[in-house]
């Protein structure tokens, strides 16, 4: 229902083609290709070490690739002369460990980048901070410091901080892996609401039930390759024995 009508001419928001990447002798990405269209939610799954987090981090150039091509919101990420800050204004990323700035209030965490990078006024940024915090259900935490919040609240605040930059695509790197089931639930609800609003998203997660509910497309990574891909239904009826084994143990 939230799917935006796509035309075949619209370029994908994120496109990886034949991406290779090694850490020393270890080949992490071995010819990875996938695309994410506007308004689409792509879920990356796979065992630890399968390369899914690396693939995600390559999208925001937190890792550089050895060969292949990555295009994100029109930026050639694989180009050495890439305008990194322009890319990162279009891409929001949320990490497993929240990474809120501990010495700043939640409001200051959120207004920092819009004020420093986009140059919007303090009052405008504060108004926007209120909006994004309301979106994640934390409007009463403006003046609190990160350490005063629970893990789930910190992660929601980190999502709000990303949203304040009005990204065109959001990346989520195992954002609930540090949380207990109850706190995981409150973070996932926020992400679901974002998906319903039509936000383009790429996420790495181990929450299979959640992936099933939210994914427009699932990419199963295995040994640095896209081993199987398809709609969320592949999680219930996998085509390859590797995915069958993975979801078998994951559910």
């Amino acid at each position, binding site marked *: 229902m939230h799917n935006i009508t796509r035309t075949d001419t619209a370029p994908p928001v994120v496109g990886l083609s034949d991406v290779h990447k090694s850490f020393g002798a270890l080949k992490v990405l071995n010819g990875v290709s996938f695309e994410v269209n506007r308004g689409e939610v792509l879920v990356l799954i796979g065992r630890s070490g399968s390369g899914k987090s690396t693939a995600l981090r390559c999208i925001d150039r937190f890792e550089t690739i050895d060969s292949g091509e990555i295009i994100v919101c029109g930026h050639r990420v694989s180009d050495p002369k890439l305008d990194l800050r322009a890319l990162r*204004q279009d891409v929001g990323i949320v990490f497993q460990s929240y990474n809120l700035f*501990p*010495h700043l209030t939640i409001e200051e965490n959120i207004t920092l980048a819009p004020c*420093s990078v986009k140059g919007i006024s303090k009052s405008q940024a504060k108004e926007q901070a209120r909006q994004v915090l309301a979106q994640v259900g934390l409007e009463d935490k403006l003046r609190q410091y990160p350490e*005063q919040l629970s893990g789930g609240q910190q992660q929601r605040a980190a999502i709000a901080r*990303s949203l304040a930059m009005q990204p065109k695509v959001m990346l989520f790197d195992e954002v609930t892996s540090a949380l207990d089931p109850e706190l995981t639930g409150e973070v996932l609800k926020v992400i679901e609401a974002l998906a319903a609003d039509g936000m383009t998203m790429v996420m790495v997660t181990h929450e299979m039930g959640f992936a099933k509910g939210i994914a427009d497309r699932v990419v199963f990574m295995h040994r640095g390759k896209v081993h199987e891909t398809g709609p969320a239904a592949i999680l219930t009826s996998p085509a390859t024995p590797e995915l069958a084994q993975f979801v078998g143990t994951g559910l």
Partner: protein
Amino acid sequence: MNLNLDFAAILERWPAFLDGALLTLQLAFIATALGTVIGVLGAIGRRSRHPVVSRLCGIYVEAIRNTPLLVQIFLVYFGLASLGLKLSAFTVAAAALTINVGAYTTEIIRAGFDAIPRGQIEAAEGLALSRAQIYWHVVMWPAIERVYPSLTSQFVLLMLASSVTSQISAEELTAVANYIQSDTYRAFETYILVAIVYVVLSLVMRAGFWLLGLVIFPRRRRLGTPL
């Protein structure tokens, strides 16, 4: 044993002691302020990706930390004189103390910078902040908050060490004391008094740093927890 202390002759010279104490505080203030700036720049330099910059900053730190302060003061004093620069003893003292404390501050702040988790910087990079903005907003303030106790002890030590500049006749507290004891022949009383004044100056500085900490670290003021 016949201990006969007479402070009367010393105490009537109180305006001279006051002048000396104020000059000591001035030296400490100048060296602390400039030393902090040097320390921040030096720490950034030591972490620079350019090997020449980081080597130069490393040489500065090691050269200062492995030579005596008095020798550094003489080097600045006679070095500037041989270049034909005629500067007051106060200026030379302030310059030498600044160069000295800048090196120690560089090391302390560098340790603070190194303690910032990598994830903090990645989060800031992900928000498209520039390198300078990341250093200022995300690295420097939490780093300084963490090393603030070491930094402020270093600055109090510096104030005490400034007594060495009496050797180039900067008219600070110890130089005043040297002059008064030779004038009154009450050496022991003079240095007892001077020691007390140094203790008071230390307490004043510590109180000042405590107040400054409340102003520049609002999170700590509100929550009282270490970062």
